[in-house]
C-alpha cells in the first residue's frame, strides 16, 4: 500500500465511502444467493420473487428504541433465522456507531453487519479528517444515504433497515431515527420498534411509555417489549438463561454509549417474568 494522495480535483474529502471508491478498495457486490446467515428470510428469495417479500415483511428480528429523561435506550434480540431454522443464537444487532450514537439493524445479516462496519468507519473517518464530529443529524443523513445506496440489493431481497439513535450534544437530548428501504429518514418523537416482532414490541412500549422516564424504567420497558415480541414472534429470540444469552441493551446519554451487563439484563427479565406471573398472564391462550 502506498500513501493515498489525490490530485486536487479528485480528493474524496472526509467521505470514507468515496475514498474506497477512489482507491478501488470497495468490495465486490455480494450476489444474493451467497448469503447464508440472514437475519431475515428474504435473503433466500430469488431475485424475481424479491418484490413480494420487500415492503413491511417479516424481518426475523426485534429492535426497540425509546427515549428517556437523559438519553435513549436501544435494545435488540440475538436470534438470526434462515427460513424456519435458527441460523445463530447469539448474533448482535445493536452496535455503537460512535461514542454518542448507536445503530441497530434488521434485515439480511451479512449486508447489515457490513453496513454497520462501513458506517462506524465513516463517522470516525470524518471526525479524524475534519477534526470535528458530525452532528447527530448529519450522522443520521449519512446512514440514510447508505441505506439508499443498498436499494439495488434490497430489490433482490437483501433488505437492510437500520434504526439509528443517539444523544444530540447540541440539543442535549436523545433522538431516534428510522429508515425505509429507499433510505428515507424519519425522526421518531418518543419510541420505535422494527423487525418482525416490532409490532408487539411497539405496542408494549406504547402502553408503558410516558415522557421523562427514568433510565431504569426505560430499560425495563425495553426488556418487557423484547419479551413480548419473542413471545409472539418465532423469529425473535427471548432470554436464554441456559446458554447465558441475553438481548443487547444499550443506553446512550451525555456520557456516551454504554452496553448493559448481561447480569443486569437477566435481572430485568426476571422482574418482567415475576410481574407477568403475578398477573397470571403466563398461562397463555390455549390452557
Amino acid at each position, binding site marked *: *500500500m502506498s500513501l493515498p494522495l489525490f490530485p486536487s480535483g479528485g480528493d474524496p474529502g472526509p467521505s470514507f465511502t468515496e475514498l474506497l471508491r477512489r482507491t478501488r*478498495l470497495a468490495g465486490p457486490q455480494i450476489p444474493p444467493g451467497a448469503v447464508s446467515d440472514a437475519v431475515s428470510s428474504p435473503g433466500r428469495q430469488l431475485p424475481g420473487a424479491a418484490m413480494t417479500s420487500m415492503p413491511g415483511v417479516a424481518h426475523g428480528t426485534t429492535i426497540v428504541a425509546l427515549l428517556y429523561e437523559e438519553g435513549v435506550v436501544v435494545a435488540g434480540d440475538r436470534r438470526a433465522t434462515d427460513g424456519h431454522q435458527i441460523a445463530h443464537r447469539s448474533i448482535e444487532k445493536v452496535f455503537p456507531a460512535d461514542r454518542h450514537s448507536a445503530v441497530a439493524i434488521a434485515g439480511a445479516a451479512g449486508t447489515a453487519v457490513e453496513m454497520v462496519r462501513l458506517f462506524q*468507519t465513516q463517522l470516525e473517518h470524518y471526525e479524524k479528517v475534519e477534526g470535528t464530529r458530525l452532528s447527530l443529524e448529519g450522522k443520521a443523513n449519512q446512514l440514510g444515504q447508505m441505506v439508499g445506496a443498498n436499494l439495488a440489493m434490497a430489490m433482490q431481497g437483501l433488505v437492510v433497515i437500520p434504526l439509528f439513535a443517539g444523544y444530540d450534544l447540541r440539543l442535549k437530548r436523545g433522538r431516534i431515527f428510522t429508515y425505509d428501504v429507499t433510505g428515507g429518514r424519519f425522526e421518531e418523537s418518543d419510541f420505535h420498534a422494527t423487525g418482525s416482532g416490532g409490532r408487539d414490541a411497539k405496542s408494549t412500549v406504547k402502553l408503558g411509555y410516558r415522557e421523562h422516564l427514568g433510565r431504569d424504567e426505560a430499560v425495563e420497558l425495553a426488556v418487557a417489549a423484547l419479551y413480548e415480541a419473542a413471545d409472539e414472534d418465532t423469529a425473535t429470540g427471548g432470554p436464554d438463561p441456559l446458554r447465558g444469552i441475553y438481548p443487547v441493551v444499550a443506553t446512550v446519554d451525555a456520557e456516551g454509549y454504554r452496553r448493559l451487563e448481561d447480569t443486569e439484563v437477566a435481572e430485568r427479565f426476571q422482574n418482567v417474568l415475576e410481574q407477568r406471573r403475578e398477573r397470571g398472564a403466563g398461562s397463555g391462550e390455549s390452557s
Partner: protein
Amino acid sequence: MTMPYYVAPEQVMKDRAEYAQKGIARGRSLIGTTYDRGVLIVAENPSSTLHKISEIYDRVAFAGVGRYNEFDQLRVAGVRHADTKGYAYSREDVDARSLATVYAQYLGQVFTHEMKPLEVEILVAELDPVGDAHQLFHIAYDGTVADEQRFTVLGGDAEAIANRMAARFHQGWTLGEGIRGCVASLSGPTRTLRGDDLEVAVLEHGPWRRTFRRIDDAEVSELLADGEPPELTVTAASAAEGKSEAGSRKPSRDEDAAETGDAPAGEA
C-alpha cells in the same frame, strides 16, 4: 527540453536539504516522549484550531512541524491509509511502523524526484497495547526514519532541545512530570511557555478503543503549575554542555538513523 547547465547531483541534494531545513527551522518545535501511561506529545503551538498533533488510528498518533499545508496533507493521507487498511483487514493490523515506512517512501520520493522537497518533519507514535514498548518514528524531510524509545524532537532547534530533554528525561515519569520536562526543554532557560502557547496530546491506556486524547489548555496550565520541572541530572547536564551549538542537526540523526526511502539512489 535541454538542461542548460550541468549541476552536480551532490549539489542538488545539498541545496534541497538546505532549503527544507530552512523551511522547517522557521516553525516551532515539538517533542514526542513516553510516560507511565503511554505516549506524550507536546508542541509549541499558539493556535488552538490549527493542530500539529492529531489522531491517526486507535493507537497511532501523528505530529508534524514545518509547513502546515504540507504536513496536514500527510496527516489526512495517513488517516486514509490507516482507515482503509483497518477496514480491509482488521483494526489490529494497523500499526505505526508500516505507516512510517509509507511516509518515508513518499518523502524520499519527493526529495529526490520533485522540484521542491517537503518542508516538514513528522512523528508517528504508537501506543503498546499491553506493555510499555511504545514506538516513536521520526521521519525527516528526506525520508530518513529514526526509531526512538525514549523521546524525539522535531523542528528547528532540535539539537539544543534534545540536549535539554536528555538531561531531564527519565523512564516512567508521570504525565505532569513529562509535560513539565518537555515544556522546560522546549522553552529553554530564557523563555517561559504557558498553557495556551502549547498543544498537548497523549495516547493513553484506558477503557476506550481510541486512545488518543487532547489535553486542553486549562489542564495543561494546571499540570504546569503542579510542580517544578524535573531536576537536571548531573551526567546528562554535563554531556549536554559538550555539544551546545544548535546549527547542524546532522550528528544526532546519524547515530540512530535507518536509511530507507530514497534508496533509488543506489540503482544509478
